[in-house]
């Protein structure tokens, strides 16, 4: 017990969905963190892991939180092997800081976050992603190695530091999306990409959802290769399609020119600061204000029907509705204003449309809304196996107890 870091009492600023934790630990080393975790497990203390705290409210409302375990004080180590296009980074480093360091050698980890202080650990635990997932997938797809603190106090690794490696079970990818329910991510290694030399975005506004969806389908079926292809449905006004190209300057220009011929609408081309501002806005749009935020997915070819569904949903709430989504991947965020009762009606309506949308998860919502609808919705298939794995990694059931998807 002597090895563990000092605990301090939780205060209002540490609250998880309004619940103030009994104690907060901010260990300085992975070893200390693992020791604190083992103690919590032995004592049966419910534990919530915190990185930057930017997505801490995602999940069910906790009955109680005995311990908030933070990765914030872990030494911010970044080992950038630019010749190998890999980097190993401690979990508490923010994505923004990591990318600032990688940029010195013209490389990046191409993942978006809407939140300034989002850490690598939190990004993996939530598997949160944005427009860049069109080309590069989520952090899960770029992860090549991981170091985890387990509830028995051990630090274990899986994967490695090379981009190609099939030795052993892929524990790293397994814990992506686990919302801190299985182990604490203390370090991760990623495959990196070179930062493109040029970038350009076509923004097209549409009078008709059908035409927008048809244009997105045409881009998907073409041989041009956008970096991102997003749709934005504002609270009022016309929906738009954002197609971004990033390559060498000449190839970026050529692809944008080809894309223009496929886009039937009012198209403007953005580059430089205007382009950056537009994409930052797109990434952050769903989180503006205090509206509920729902993540949902659909089969890519059914975008037009999803856009119509969003229009139909406007009749169910007095508040604003906006959709920011990956047009070709088929996933996005719906920001839902209105009263908790109206928001609940929207979530329930989406969940009833199993013929069209899936994975309807409530990422942000007030307590009243979370009391009315389950955060995660449908239980996953293979639940018996997932529960067995949960019992193995967290036998005392302390990790994000009853909050996470398992």
């Amino acid at each position, binding site marked *: 017990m002597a090895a563990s870091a000092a605990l301090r009492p939780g205060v209002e600023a540490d609250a998880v969905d309004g619940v103030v934790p009994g104690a907060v630990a901010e260990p300085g080393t992975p070893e200390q963190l693992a020791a604190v975790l083992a103690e919590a497990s032995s004592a049966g203390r419910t534990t919530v892991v915190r990185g930057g705290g930017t997505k801490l409210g995602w999940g069910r409302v906790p009955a109680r939180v005995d311990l908030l375990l933070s990765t914030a004080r872990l030494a911010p180590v970044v080992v950038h*092997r630019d*010749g*190998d296009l890999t980097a190993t980074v401690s979990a508490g480093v923010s994505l923004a800081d990591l990318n600032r360091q990688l940029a010195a050698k013209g490389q990046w980890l191409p993942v978006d976050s809407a939140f300034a202080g989002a850490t690598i650990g939190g990004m993996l635990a939530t*598997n949160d*992603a944005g427009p860049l997932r069109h080309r590069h997938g*989520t952090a899960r797809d770029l992860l090549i190695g991981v170091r*985890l603190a*387990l509830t028995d106090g051990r630090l*274990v*690794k*899986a994967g*490695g530091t*090379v981009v*190609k490696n*099939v*030795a*052993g*079970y*892929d*524990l790293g*990818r*397994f*814990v*992506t*999306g*686990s919302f801190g*329910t*299985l182990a604490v991510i203390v370090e991760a290694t990623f495959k990196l*990409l*070179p930062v*493109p*030399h040029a970038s350009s975005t076509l923004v097209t506004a549409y009078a008709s959802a059908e035409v927008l969806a048809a244009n997105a389908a045409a881009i998907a*079926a*073409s*041989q*041009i*290769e956008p970096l991102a292809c997003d749709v934005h449905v504002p609270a009022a006004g016309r929906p738009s399609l954002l197609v971004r190209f990033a*390559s*060498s300057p000449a*190839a970026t*220009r*050529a*692809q944008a020119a080809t894309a223009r011929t496929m886009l039937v609408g009012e198209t403007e081309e953005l580059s430089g600061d205007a382009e950056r501002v537009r994409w930052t806005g797109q990434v952050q749009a769903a989180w503006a204000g205090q509206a509920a935020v729902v*993540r949902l*997915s659909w089969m*890519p*070819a059914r975008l037009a029907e999803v856009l119509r569904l969003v229009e139909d949903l406007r009749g169910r709430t007095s508040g604003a509705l906006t959709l920011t989504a990956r047009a070709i991947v088929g*996933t996005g965020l719906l920001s839902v204003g209105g009263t908790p009762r109206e928001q609940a009606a929207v979530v329930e309506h989406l969940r009833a449309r199993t013929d069209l949308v*899936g*994975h309807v*998860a409530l990422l942000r919502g007030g307590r009243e809304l979370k009391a009315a609808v389950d955060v*995660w919705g449908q239980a*996953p298939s*293979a639940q*018996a*196996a*997932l529960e067995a*794995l949960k019992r*193995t990694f967290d036998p005392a059931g302390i990790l994000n107890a009853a909050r996470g998807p*398992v």
Partner: protein
Amino acid sequence: MPAPIADQLRAVCGPEGVLDEPVQLLTYECDALPHLRQMPAVVTLPRSAAEVQAIVRLCAREGVPFVARGHGSGLSGGALPVPGGVVISLARLNRVLEVDIPNRQVTVEPGVTNLEITRQVAPFGYYYAPDPSSQQVCSIGGNVAENSGGAHCLKYGFTVHHVLQVEAVMPDGELVTVGSPMADGPGPDLLALLVGSEGTLAVVTKVVVRILRRPETVQTLLAAFDSPRAGGEAVSQIIAAGIVPAAVEMMDALAIKAAEAAVHPNFPPADTVLIVELDGPASEVTELFEVVDAICRRTGASTVEVARDEAHRMRIWRGRKAAFAAMGRVSPNYYVQDGVVPRTKLPEVLARIRALSERSGLGIGNVFHAGDGNLHPLICYDESVPGQAELAEKVAGEILGYCVEAGGSITGEHGVGADKKHYMPRMFSDDDLDAMQRLRDAVDPRRLCNPGKVLPTPRLCGEVPGPYRQHPIEKAGLGERF
């Protein structure tokens, strides 16, 4: 093995779906790593997921171990039978269930070959990206088990990046669906855990994969260098220029000589050749290809040959892909190794391999994916010379040590299987391996699902270590090692 289980299996699969005569079982005693052999008690040939489920349930009830098998092209003994166990061959689950072009997905049964997926979608301008060199014969179920890669995974990733959903029978007999044809399902990524688990966590009965649009342009060049270091420098500068090639392959003098003898790709007589392929939109490929060409010349390439057309490109690739089997032209026997080093450590590790070759007196050819550091040293030996086969195996093991010391891996794509599980402690601590064992026990508490693979255990009685021998399929030129 008491007779009743074979009878019970016949009730599930019909008499023609169960093999238990020794002569019938011979085919199944090994995969494409033929120095590991074990007779199973029974082989089953189910035709549906329901039959697979019934077989697994039966095995679970009777406490009989079972091993799933695709088309037996694995190179790590992943489909090696277990003494007294049941082999579940998925060869008859070979239907393409759905081709969905608008959503860019294909649903297949596990016995469908990798290349068949591309054949199905090629008329629409699409393809399935992972391309192990055995793609004509290997099954998609086996690809899922091994997380197969290929020459183009530097840019396009592995099986885990292209499988969206699987249907699988868990070791207790439950039929489950894992993953989703829609993106971003919440919760731990059980699908990513199953992909690459080498058949130890489940038996896959259906696979949904995503397909990609064919790139507009593909350009390939072959550059000759006077040392692997010079070739390696070219690769470093290509990467530093911010270019991610679709493939970067390197071959050394011995491999070039063997390839020339076998398929006459007309490679230049050089110490090292580098093959670089770019693909994508024409505007991008044309511009970057000039940069690659210039880098190769700047770093000392004596010749740079650009593929003029598809036939020329195929000839270059034929030389590369034939390199393994071609070793048979320059050596009576050879042992193929699969290890990974960080790309920048390639020159250092190649120098160590060269020194090892001189010290051991065994020729070692090198063919490798230079973009991602995946080495395939080919250790030449003559099994008619007493002790040489054992020496070759020792040399192969030593090379894995170099890979681990350089910060790499004991396998980049062939898997751990039965072959390399004893090397796992070189890469992973006892705690790491214990966590993996507990994970496995959570899913398969009775240890019936492909036991004895991946994680180190005391050797089973039937497992006799021995040197590599060429598989009959390979000998006949029907399969290649990549």
